């Protein structure tokens, strides 16, 4: 597969804060490439640099062969962008929003009608074409935005948290559309998310934390690297249990909300043995396969969802915690 996005040592500095600390990666044509990480990890900043919204402090990147600083307009024609917040004109109809987009992107006049019908069909909004966007539900607006982002046949579609704020059913639908796109148009999809289940669908996932890329692989491979299974237990005396487990099994135990979590090889066999041998009374047990959250936990010692500190706080804390 040819490379469509090439990123080399891309950096973004704001005064004394480095939002993106030199990331490098390639995205292949036709793949779904996911950016996973907590809020403020630098995902959006990276996407904003790639989509020419902000200029990088240093480093280079090309999209569809065009440099993101030197050939901004060429890059803009090559990409579609779906932002976290809506960018539709809600006072206009779906058709008017789409028509304006065609004009902004110089889609040839004779192609417009055909394209509009096509993209509306992809997102199942054909019968809403002449309705005012204001009357749409959140999910419909999102779908319309995706449709609009496709009108100029971009080579790469950037989706920044495409399903944030939507109910689970609508989220599932949006994903159906995204997968349909990939199959149908062979379009490259570049998305950011902090939903684990969404990252699982990606062909490859780049894990970002504190402005740096800390892992990049297929979801299956990333999970394999965690090693073994995840055992979660609660005991009557967690403090003693924690040190006991660490001593006996030479493994790192994390405690959170009364639950001790640690990794073990061949979890099913281990569990039987463990319950039999362990002296401290166990109150609950859960054995599971690793998820991408465990991948993140393994790499950083934190869970993705814990991350609610503001950028400023993190600047003060630095990386070592």
């Amino acid at each position: 597969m040819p490379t469509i996005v090439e990123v080399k040592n891309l950096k973004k500095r704001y005064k004394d804060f480095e939002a993106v600390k030199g990331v490098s990666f390639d995205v292949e044509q036709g793949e779904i490439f996911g950016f996973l990480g907590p809020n403020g990890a630098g995902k959006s900043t990276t996407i904003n640099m790639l989509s020419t919204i902000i200029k990088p402090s240093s480093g280079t990147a090309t999209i569809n062969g065009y440099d993101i600083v030197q050939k901004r307009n060429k890059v803009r024609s090559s990409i579609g962008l779906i932002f976290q917040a809506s960018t539709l004109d809600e006072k206009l109809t779906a058709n008017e929003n789409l028509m304006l987009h065609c004009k902004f992107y110089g889609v040839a006049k004779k192609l417009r009608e055909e394209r509009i019908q096509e993209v509306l069909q992809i997102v199942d909004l054909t019968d809403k074409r002449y309705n005012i966007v204001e009357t749409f539900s959140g999910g419909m607006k999102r779908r319309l935005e995706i449709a609009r982002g496709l009108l100029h046949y971009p080579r790469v579609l950037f989706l920044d948290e495409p399903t944030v704020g939507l109910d689970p059913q609508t989220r599932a639908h949006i994903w159906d559309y995204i997968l349909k796109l990939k199959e149908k148009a062979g379009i490259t999809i570049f998305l950011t998310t902090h939903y684990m289940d969404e990252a699982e669908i990606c062909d490859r996932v780049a894990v970002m934390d504190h402005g740096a890329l800390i892992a990049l692989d297929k979801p299956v491979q990333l999970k394999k690297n965690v090693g073994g299974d995840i055992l979660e237990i609660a005991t009557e005396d967690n403090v003693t249990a924690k040190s006991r487990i660490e001593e006996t099994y030479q493994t790192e135990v994390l405690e959170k909300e009364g639950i001790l979590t640690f990794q073990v090889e061949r979890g099913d066999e281990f569990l039987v043995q463990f319950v039999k041998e362990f002296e401290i009374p166990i109150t609950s047990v859960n054995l599971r396969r690793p998820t991408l959250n465990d991948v993140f936990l393994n790499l950083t010692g934190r869970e993705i969802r814990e991350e609610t500190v503001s950028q400023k706080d993190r600047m003060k804390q630095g990386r070592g915690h």
Partner: protein
Amino acid sequence: MEGIFAIWQRDILKFFRDRSRLIGSFAMPFMFLILFGSGMSGAMSSMLGGSEAGALRDFDFVEFMFPGIIGMTVFNTAIFSALSVVQDKEFGYMREILVSPMSRVSIAIGKVLGGSTVAVFQGLLMLVFVPFIGVSISFVTIIQLIPTMFLVAFAISSFGLLIASTLKTTQGFQMVIQVLIFPMLFLSGALFPLNGLPFWMDILVKINPLTYSVDMFKKIVFDIDAMTPELIEAMGLNLSIFNHVISFTEEVLVVGAISLVFVILATYKFSTTEA
């Protein structure tokens, strides 16, 4: 080129769709022209001391105000058209525009043209007051008004865009505009004749671009040749700088020059906008 057209088209589309704005735009002119104007006209003519006979018996305050009201409407609409730029920033649509391959210059020009066109429409709508106030407007007058309104609107829309490009919130924009609008209106001769002003105020009047704009409308609407010198004097129709009476052509040049300066500044300022 098509980008400019699309930006322009969106403004026009939204103008005609927003009925309440369309109707609301009559409120201010109506108040000034009919309530304020009719109320003041008696006082005005007695103050001028020419109610019965004399050279000023033809002075009609409502009639006097009419071109000023056209000017005010064009001015208000044009400057507030830039509000859409700030709103687009707030509601996110500006990102859709800014990440497209269109040049920033096209976007700015499209915005200014959109605002100008809408202002001309609004200005023309003021002609519905004509039958009620006794001025006679010929077809030729209307033909002369349209390009003049457009020139004025272009200057003011550019001015609005310049302000909008520096502000992030609609509240901020409205504040700044309110502070600017009233002094500019009062010092333009739109609402009362500017006679016997103190020196400092006279200077403000002469540097106010609106003064020349309003005067252009007056020159088009009134048949100045048929007026007595006293009436011309009383109505403040002899706008002059350093004892030189300014002609219509000179006013076109002045407003044209102001347009050029503002549109360049606005385009430059807008180009620095980050998405």
